[in-house]
């Protein structure tokens, strides 16, 4: 029976480095990074859209690289640097990408926005002046149903310009 299986869940103690803060957690081994961020650490800025790696909404940065947190187990990322949307602004000062997204209306319902911002951040850190097609290519794994993507592309370009 499934209920007996539930009682025998294996748990591990892990130390996760999220947004520069180290937190020790006792976690069921099968829980995804997405679930741990949202449910155990109250970092609800990371959203879920499908939990199957299809939509990009749960994107976080692991050592600066954009990864889908619904496909990552915390045990894989112990000791690595995890950045969520909550860690993107510098204190009260918005990251230039956040500023540009706000100014240009690149967030409508805003649900895909954290994931797209982090994907874009990862891009700009390796390619400070991406072409519009390079931005499209990088963000193609992030779905948005509101904007038609145009204002997002404009915002990434605006931020890239301001950051250089």
């Amino acid at each position, binding site marked *: *029976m*499934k*209920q007996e299986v*539930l*009682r025998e869940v294996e748990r591990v103690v892990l130390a996760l480095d999220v947004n520069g803060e180290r937190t020790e957690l006792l976690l069921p081994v099968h829980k995804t990074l997405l679930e741990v961020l*949202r*449910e155990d650490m*109250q*970092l*609800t*800025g*990371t*959203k*879920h*859209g*499908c*939990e*199957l790696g*299809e*939509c990009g*909404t749960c994107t976080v940065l692991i050592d600066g690289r954009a990864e889908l947190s619904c496909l990552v187990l915390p045990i894989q990322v112990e000791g690595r640097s995890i950045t*969520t*949307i*909550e860690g*993107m*602004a510098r204190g009260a000062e*918005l990251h230039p990408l*956040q*500023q540009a*997204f*706000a*100014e*240009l*209306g690149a*967030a*409508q*319902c*805003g*649900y*895909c926005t*954290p994931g797209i*911002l982090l994907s874009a951040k990862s891009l700009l850190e390796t390619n400070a002046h991406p072409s519009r097609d390079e*931005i*499209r*290519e990088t*963000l*193609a*794994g*992030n*779905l*948005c*149903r*509101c*904007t*038609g*993507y*145009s*204002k*997002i*592309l404009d915002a990434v370009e605006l931020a890239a310009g301001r950051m250089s």
Partner: protein
Amino acid sequence: MTPNGKFGVIGKPLPKVDAVAKVTGRAIYADDMLLPRTLHCRILRSPHPHARILSIDTSAARRIPGVQAVITGADLPIKFGILPVTQDERALEHEKVRYVGDPIAAVAAIDEEIAAAACDAIEVEYEVLDAVMSIDEALVAPTDERIQDYGGPHNIHKLVALEFGDVESGFTRADHIREDVFFFQGSTHLPMEQHSATATYMDGRITLWSSTQVVHYVQRALSKVLELPMNRIRVIGAAHGGGFGGKTDPFAHEMIVCKLAMMTGRPVKCTLTREEVFYAHRGRHPVLMWVRTGVTRDGLITAMHFRTALDGGAYGSYGVASTFYTGALQTVTYDIPAYRFEGCRVFTNKPPCGPKRGHGTPQPRFALELHLEKIALDLGIDPVDLKQRNFVKAHTRTVNWLRVTSCGLDECTERVMTASGYRKREKRPGHGMGFAISSYLSGAGTAIYWNDMPHSEVQIKVDRGGVTAFCGAMDIGQGSDSVLATIVAEELGLQPADVRLVTADTDTTPIDLGSYSSRVTFMAGNAAIEAGRKMRGMLIEAVAAKMKCDAAAIEVGSGRIGDFSFEEASVLAEGRFGTLTTAGSYTPPKIAGPYKGSGVGPSPAYSYTACVVGLDADARTGLVRVNKIWIAHDAGRAINPLLVEGQVEGSVYMGLGEALMEEQAFRKGLHKWPSMLEYKSPTFLDMPEVETFIVETVDPEGPYGAKEAGQGPLLPVPPAVCSAVYDALGVWIDEVPVTPEKIVEALRRKQKGEPARFGPARFPTIPYPPTIKVEPPPKDLDRAAAASI
């Protein structure tokens, strides 16, 4: 507005008032909430498309440690539905299930995994019935029992037949008559956010936080199902992760969490999985259409006969309204002197269809635009010219009594013609351009249930310089909060950021019917203007008394009222009048025609759109690559052009998805692809450049002249894509989505000398009722009103 007629904040591309909350991850969506001691709910759903439930045994589920409550249909037996005429849904079904995904039982447990395990442990015995999966199957006698026990014969839900003016003599006058058949496939909203709701019950009161578009309608449905007065039910709209019409019905999970909270005394939360969101659906109806039109040799329409058959899925939802909508708005873009509409909605064993962006109108718009293109070809007239000759004029009534006020069709058309170079385009195989137009409501003229109350109300409180605006409107990402703040700021000479908002909370805000039918800017906007002007008047009066001058001499703007700062002025006014509160409300004009069904279609104003699509289509592979879309939208006045552009671009995107790939399709009773990977939607790589033009016609009744922007611009995209494919390859694809295999098949048929098209071969025989004949409106019906504008 300042005395010289200049706006302070209206028309400025300001960021949305919630932009920072959204870019920092601080906006709290429904699933981000977790109250102390929350129980988690999972729902057991039907694995069969059509079955009788013989028994439900929940005893094993109840024994699982951590399970706090298990409920079935017997616990929530009262039926509900968004429309008063179709109260056909139960939160949980205990007698029969009608689609794969129909809810049967629900569990509240200390965590989600235990709740899911408990759902697995529920034993349900079914008697499986034959499933009805298509319009054709629904139109014949069922092999088992019918899906619903009401409606027309067999599995027909709704039949309608209306005639406006003398259609027969219209066809007699015609020099040319053409008939065509089209099919528009169903699609789903696919909001990025799965539906989620959390309920608490304390002291006899329910509080529900939900990702809904319509807090008031959810409150009404809860009141009925839970048998509690509305004043014991508080519904709060959480930050919203996308609706597009998909969160406009009251849903089973919303009732379930409330019931479980009442039983357990603890907060209960339910978030649907992505698969469940596909079953919740309420999306675009698949519609089969037949249209017959008579024209003069100059291309002027003399009569039109339009038939639709809607595949409604298992329940009523908004379906009666959807059915009327498939026949209502043909007349608001083209002057049709005699018009006959016959509509039919059937029940099938699929998730219920309902309102998706454009609600019931993108399908007939698709058919109408392509049909007119074909007529133009028959007559040897340029299709753009033919359409323009038939454009409706501003300030007229249509033959079906719809009142047209401002109309920017000509200007929109000229803008996209000029920008795209459509008329001078180079004709070469594999490259094509297509043109289409559309129109949509700025809010429905009637509420969902009959009442005389306003459709939107706004209260403003000013207190020591602070301004708070209260309104039931629900911001679903389109920016309705920003529109409210902007309008209140405009009237009080402030910036939107100076206005605090309390919205979408049935306890603390006055009513707004919700974010559907593109109604919020128009209706809440007008209510906000009224409340704002009353407050402005009080502030001016207090300042004028202090300055000992005439109120007319007091200027309002830049945070000042006359010689005083806004804060000083508010203190003066509070001293003079006491607590500073004002209210405004908006009720649409009663302009519906004198016939049954006339409540669907009227709107205080219609938006207009024109669109050109440019694409490459490959004859060998059938692949279509859209290169650019030019779109001009008559939004009356852009209260915030940034937001209008966002709505237009988002609509173009969604229309393109429906044109090329999106499909809610079924096989053997099952949804073919209830996942975001397999249900294809456009990515960054699929989306072409969009050039948007905002046309401002300043509607006499809109707030500062504004009309809708969030739905109309979707409509012309699918037909413009098909026209462009014809322009490129010489084949008609008379159904969406336009997939490569359809293009290749149409080209194969063309090569064999068969009709160069892919699309439905015929329209079924439907037992429409006798046609109700309606006299067209008298010519001078709105003359008095027009003269006063």
